[in-house]
């Protein structure tokens, strides 16, 4: 019996894998994808691709553009300045996104609802809950690049536009995860506080929220790393971050400059990654202890 059901499962899995492969081939065919397309069409393309990857070995130590004035700061300085701008946008965007997410996460969670409650209050709270859940999924279903284009066309190219473009989708994602982290928090402490006369909102603010706080901070740090990458990418729509420098150098085929900026960005991301891991380890150190 057991053997038969295992075989049955395998058979089903094989069909699913086959189905996926067929779907891929159909997509490839309808998009005009052929193995020949993987080969660059002419010699110049080959050369350009080669030049790009060869440049990885020799990132520019000086500007490739001969028109750069003599007294311009060195390229590494310009790169670092780009990183600083990237950091500023990421930090600014997150500073807007976190408070927004806390507010939306609160209304998108249910652990602060009073108990017992009449049908009217229940309906009202559920209405708020779903409205905020919908708002958060709306915000995060639009990518930050699309938000940037929308906001740039409305407000023009301003630093604030870049920050808002980051803050909106990030607040949607943060808020959704915040609300789930809050609702998943163990209800033991909340029940104990309720039993000694705490009000529902009081229980939330002094019990549930403090208990969930380390998780909220850990997740926000992770999202800050994501914001850093997104902030760099916003350069491609004209907002002044290191992404803009990469885009401009790339347009002029200054590949060595591109790689200089790439490496600087990579270094920053690795650095922030290490820092975040350190903070996470310290914040979550209590978890091991509490299980002992």
């Amino acid at each position, binding site marked *: 019996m057991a053997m038969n059901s295992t075989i049955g499962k395998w058979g089903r899995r094989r069909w699913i894998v086959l189905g996926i492969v067929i779907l891929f081939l159909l997509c490839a065919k309808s998009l005009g994808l052929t193995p020949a397309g993987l080969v660059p069409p002419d010699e110049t393309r080959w050369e350009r691709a080669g030049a790009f990857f060869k440049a990885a070995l020799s990132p520019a130590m000086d500007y490739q553009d001969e028109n750069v004035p003599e007294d311009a700061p060195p390229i590494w300085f310009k790169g670092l300045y780009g990183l600083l701008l990237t950091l500023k946008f990421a930090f600014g965007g997150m500073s807007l996104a976190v408070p927004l997410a806390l507010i939306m996460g609160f209304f998108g969670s249910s652990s602060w609802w009073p108990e017992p409650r009449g049908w009217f209050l229940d309906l009202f709270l559920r209405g708020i809950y779903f409205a905020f859940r919908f708002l958060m999924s709306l915000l995060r279903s639009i990518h930050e690049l699309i938000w940037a284009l929308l906001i740039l066309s409305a407000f023009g190219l301003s630093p604030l536009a870049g920050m808002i473009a980051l803050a909106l989708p990030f607040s949607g994602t943060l808020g959704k995860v915040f609300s789930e982290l809050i609702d998943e928090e163990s209800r033991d402490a909340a*029940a104990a506080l309720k039993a000694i006369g*705490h009000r529902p909102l009081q229980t939330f603010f002094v019990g549930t929220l403090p208990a969930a706080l380390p998780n909220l901070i850990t997740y926000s740090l992770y999202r800050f790393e994501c914001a850093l990458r997104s902030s760099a990418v916003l350069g491609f729509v004209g907002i002044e971050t290191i992404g803009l420098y990469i885009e401009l150098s790339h347009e002029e085929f200054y590949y060595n400059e591109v790689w200089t900026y790439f490496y600087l960005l990579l270094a920053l991301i690795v650095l922030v990654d290490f820092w975040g891991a350190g903070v996470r380890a310290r914040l979550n150190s209590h978890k091991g202890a509490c299980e002992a």
Partner: protein
Amino acid sequence: MSSAFELNGVTCRFGDLVAIDKVSLSIAEGEQVAFIGPSGSGKTTLIRLLNTTAVPSDGSLSVLGYIIADQSVESLRVLRSRVGTMPQHLGLVENLTAIQNVILGRGGQRTTLRSIRDLIIPSRSDTEKIHQLLRRVGIEEKLFTMVSKLSGGQKQRVAIARALFQEPEILLADEPVSAVDPARARDSVRLLTELSGELGFTLCVSLHHLELAKEFFPRLIGLRQGRVVFDGAPDSLKDRELESLYELTADEMMADA
């Protein structure tokens, strides 16, 4: 003496399960009572009825002279702020410090804003009071230690200090020693009964540790399948009654298997 609890034919059902079955009993203010009985006998439900987080399906219950069925949500909340509860799993906020957890004991008597402020900047008088309480329960050096860094016994003391800071008229404790070793269990039970004597609050504790209940409590109430099968002083508890309290019937053995 006026009564802390007055139960008259109280029944509590959860769906088809009858957790408490027509229980009538009276506990006077200042009494020290242990609820004993096997797991599933209704001890926890009884505690939840007494702190009004569960409501009787039938019968009448009054706490400190208030008939529970007649109270509004708000007056029940105020009543709860006068009754301390130590739940079985203590219900501490693990990543707050000992003082922050203890200060929450008085939250039911304070506004929400005041409680939030208490967590961030506790008042000097509260800090001093809590320091004394922690000295009384033997962990004064842990005032600013995060609860998650404490041992099981120390956490239990934080929970006791939180209950004391509440200055309750009644203290309910659900299996307070289930998570600590026998020597500490004895110390904790002694501490609770001593404090009850010193401060004069009514103490009701559920214990599955029969020896401790007999040693420290002048009154034992035995529960079995939601009914009171014994109520009296430990020395009047006969072996036969004990056996009937813990012995499994043939049906229950089948259910366990």
